[in-house]
């Protein structure tokens, strides 16, 4: 049998063996919230969590990161490229929705004629240890976007939480090599595998929200000018929590941080949001999306209409973070319902969840 067992008591052993080779990231408690951080002590790992507040996207695409550094020598400039992009990273405890987001991010940053080397090199150097969700949150809807609380595909190694131990499955080649190195893991029994399957089934059955996103995309494509957008955007206060906590949002600003006294500095990129009016404001004063109705619409259209057109899948992994983060409860499920109601009114039948 290929499946292995990792006792929770042995997490320390796993950490001390892997931290020599990898920069080790895991869920930790930061100011009362769960966040993925680089750890230096196994005690920091938080094993009991539903999901992190900020997605692990920020390990590979941090809120603020250096693109390159430079220094001035008289009028000449010397550019120093980053040398840490190929450092080996290990991200432990990634939920299936967030693991799937890495695939979407990878497809996005590799799309077209230009490859985003800053992201892609880090992605290639990273190993993902995923973990199934025994208890999906009330706001979760991954099964509506082709995901599953026990989906293994985008991870390298997949863990199922069996109480005092984890069932360990190697998913990718990278994962197989990693599990091989951990020769002290014991073999799993059939009962362990059955238990994992049972947990997966229970988790799947617990979902109350199920959307048909093919239909959502179709309705969106036909209703760009619909009055529903006024209703949807009315209560939005433009705080941008939905985009900053989204595992698939990729927008960024680029700024030079100049250290004038030392004749050097760095060009950085920093998360930006389509919910801000400054995002599209041009120097002339012209703004293609000056009102929040246009900005709210852009976010929904981008995820569920433009993304399918460009990348053949919706730009959402169903993690529900935007739902729990919204301070005015203008939540995605209600927005989707309102969009589907357009179709219902036309067809005269109920189709939303």
């Amino acid at each position, binding site marked *: 049998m290929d499946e292995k067992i990792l006792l929770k008591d042995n997490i320390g052993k796993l950490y001390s063996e892997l931290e020599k080779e990898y920069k080790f990231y895991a869920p930790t408690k930061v100011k009362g919230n769960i966040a993925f951080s680089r750890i230096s002590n196994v005690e920091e790992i938080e094993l009991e969590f539903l999901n992190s507040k900020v997605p692990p996207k920020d390990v590979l695409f941090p809120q603020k990161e250096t*693109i*390159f550094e*430079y220094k*001035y020598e008289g*009028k*000449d*400039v010397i*550019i120093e*490229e980053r040398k840490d992009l190929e450092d080996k990273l290990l991200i432990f405890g990634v939920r299936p929705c967030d693991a799937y987001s890495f695939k979407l991010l990878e497809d*996005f*940053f590799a*799309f*077209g*004629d*230009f*490859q*985003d*080397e*800053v992201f892609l090199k880090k992605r290639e150097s990273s190993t993902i240890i995923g973990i199934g969700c025994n208890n999906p949150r009330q706001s979760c809807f991954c099964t509506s976007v082709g995901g599953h609380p026990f989906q293994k595909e985008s991870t390298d190694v997949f863990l199922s939480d069996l109480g005092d131990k984890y069932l360990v499955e190697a998913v990718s080649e990278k994962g197989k090599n990693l599990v091989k190195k951990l020769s002290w893991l014991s073999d799993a029994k059939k009962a362990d595998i059955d238990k994992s399957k049972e947990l997966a089934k229970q988790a799947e059955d617990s979902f109350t929200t199920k959307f048909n996103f093919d239909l959502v995309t179709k309705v969106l494509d036909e209703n*760009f000018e619909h009055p529903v957008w006024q209703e949807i955007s009315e209560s939005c206060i433009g705080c941008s929590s939905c985009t900053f906590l989204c595992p698939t949002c*990729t*927008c*960024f*600003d*680029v*700024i*030079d941080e*100049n250290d*004038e006294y030392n004749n050097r*500095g760095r*060009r950085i*990129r920093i998360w*930006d949001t*389509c919910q801000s009016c400054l*995002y*599209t*404001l*041009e*120097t*002339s004063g*012209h703004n*293609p*999306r000056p009102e929040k109705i*246009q900005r709210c619409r*852009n976010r929904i*259209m*981008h995820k569920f*209409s*433009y993304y399918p*057109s*460009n990348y053949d899948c919706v730009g959402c992994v169903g993690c529900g973070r935007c739902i729990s983060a919204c301070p005015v409860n203008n939540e995605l499920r209600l927005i989707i319902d309102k969009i589907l109601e357009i179709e219902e009114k036309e067809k005269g039948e109920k189709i939303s969840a």
Partner: protein
Amino acid sequence: MPNPYIPMLTKVKSMVSENEVNDIKTFELEFIKEEEYKNFNYIPGQYAEISIIGKGECPIGIASSPTEEGTIKFTIKKMGTVTSSFHNSDVGDTIGVRGPLGNGWPMEELKGKNIVVIGGGFAFSTLRSLILYVLDEKHRKDYGRVTVIYGNRNSGEVLYRDVLEEWEKRDDIDVVLTIDREEDDWTRKVGFVAAIVKEVAPSSDNAVAVVCGPPIMITTAQNELEKLNWKAEQILNSLEMRMKCGIGKCGRCNIGEKYVCIDGPVFSLAELKQMPKEH
């Protein structure tokens, strides 16, 4: 694959003030590495992300034509932090360049066609590139008659006077200059660009219009052309949007599912009609 965020380095070779109030300058840049210049293969209508390193980067249309060898040129109006830094720079200063970017004017598709160039204000830069390219002796036989309608607020704002004068002397190109209001000593047209398009009434026969200017000028000029029976497929526009990366990653220049930075900046009116009015 090189990292697309790393700029190539150039030096300011010369800078020329283009207008009376001195807030528009053309910068001529020379690549430090000869090899990078050789690989900088561009067509008219493309742009580059150019930067004063330490101040910031911004997208600017390439004003030079590929036929002008040795250097590349950018015409920059002093507006914000980065463009003001350009205006404060000096010959010999280092400038970062990433590009060429964007689709540019479809020079292959324009072959055999009459070209009507409609421009307003300092957006004329990539049109300068296109006209110089078409008039170059290597390419002249590939294209039909060229008509240029170029409008400005006042006579002090007319860019590229040196090349305009040369074009006016030629008989294979019609140059129509206009300013918004009458001025003493101004002997050309007076009126908004759209009104002059109506007056000149260029024939749509085997022709393509290339339009670049402020949003209101683009829209009104398009309307006039349509009234003159031009088809939406014959009208090409170069759009501007706020952008940061220029390579389809930073997000902000989308119009619907298209990104102006990589799918544009040149779109036909037929394409624009299929897109949301968010530009």
